[in-house]
């Protein structure tokens, strides 16, 4: 069997699985406190975050087909909506409490998290990162003078800086992922070449004795029964075609990894496996 039966986990799988886990775990403390009646309010954003997290995990675990980069990035972006909602509502809640607080911390951590998870589509990835500082600026603009009075000066500078840093981190992450994927692809190609080489060696191994026997039989026939010389010539011609096939297979083997691979094998086993 040349292709593995089970699909290997790709970066897209890992990214969506991690995002699902973060969404679920992010909503878990609030939901637990609410269940234990320690918190009077359960934000819908938390509930949706947990549901979408579980949904994405189930999707990744049960799916068999390979997800395209665009699809994975779109799912990632949709699954971020509860996170945008959560950072907005949590900042809105803090801003009305009438005391000093560090604004937009969640935005900063969130855009770094997106950069680390690295959705493969660059445009979607950059957009999902920049939406966090953009939301911070937008929300800052909506604050009343009373709310602004409790904020430190230039409160939106930090999320903007974090957004910029996250973008740089994101593009480096993508580059690293690209190199890793190229290495994995190259390794898979080498393994495939080794399998093809083994198959060619096995075919040659199985074919060589019959070719030799046919060649000898044709010569025997020619010498024993001169009237059958045309038959012998036909057999010899066919044998020569098989020899030519052998030569072509040798050409394919030349320069291949045949010398470096484990050379002792059972040809039947190699071909039937």
């Amino acid at each position, binding site marked *: 069997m040349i292709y593995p039966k089970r699909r290997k986990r790709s970066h897209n799988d890992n990214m969506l699985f991690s995002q699902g886990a973060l969404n679920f775990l992010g909503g878990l403390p609030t939901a637990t406190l609410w269940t234990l009646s320690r918190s009077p309010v359960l934000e819908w954003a938390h509930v949706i975050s947990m549901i979408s997290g579980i949904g994405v995990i189930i999707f990744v675990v049960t799916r068999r087909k390979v997800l395209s980069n665009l699809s994975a990035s779109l799912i990632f972006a949709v699954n971020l909506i509860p996170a945008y909602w959560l950072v907005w509502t949590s900042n809105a809640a803090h801003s009305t409490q009438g005391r000093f607080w560090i604004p937009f911390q969640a935005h900063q951590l969130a855009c770094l998290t997106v950069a680390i998870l690295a959705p493969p589509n660059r445009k979607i990835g950059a957009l999902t990162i920049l939406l966090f500082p953009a939301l911070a600026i937008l929300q800052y603009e909506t604050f009343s003078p009373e709310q602004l009075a409790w904020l430190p000066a230039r409160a939106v500078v930090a999320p903007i800086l974090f957004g910029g840093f996250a973008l740089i981190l994101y593009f480096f992450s993508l580059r690293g992922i690209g190199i890793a994927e190229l290495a994995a692809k190259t390794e898979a190609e080498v393994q495939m070449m080794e399998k093809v080489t083994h198959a060619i*060696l096995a075919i*040659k*191994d*199985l*074919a*060589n*004795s*019959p*070719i*030799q*026997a*046919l*060649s*000898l*039989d044709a*010569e*025997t026939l020619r*010498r*024993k029964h001169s009237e059958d010389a045309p038959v012998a010539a036909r057999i010899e011609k066919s*044998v020569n075609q098989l*020899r030519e096939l*052998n030569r072509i297979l040798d050409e394919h*083997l030349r320069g291949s990894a*045949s*010398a470096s691979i484990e*050379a*002792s094998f*059972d040809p039947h086993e190699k071909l039937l496996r």
Partner: protein
Amino acid sequence: MPNTPLKQILLVDDDENLVDALAEFLELAAAVKCYRLRSLSEVKGIWPKISESKPILAILDINLGAGEPSGVEVYHWLNGQGFRGQSFFLTGHAKDHPLVQQAIQIEGIKVFEKPMEIDRIIALVEEAAR
């Protein structure tokens, strides 16, 4: 005309068709007597009967099948029994196969890849017969 005994050749290959084809051809083309053998145990079985007549050549397949001693082991066994004829190996395996490597390392022994040219086989038999 004196009845000269035919020169004898040992053919050892696990492929029965090939052994028969090679034997029939050599008996016809080179006027020799061929012993068709498929394994070391068959060689051991027939050796007491033929050792006196001093076979001139052993054509040995290298891989004699799963679980069987190889042609290289047959070669060493024959040498141990005082066989003084020529030997060469035939193989369908790749040159980097460990058994083929073992055969190549034996000094003075030629290893040929199947399928071999007919004229080359006859030339080797005639050389051994001289």
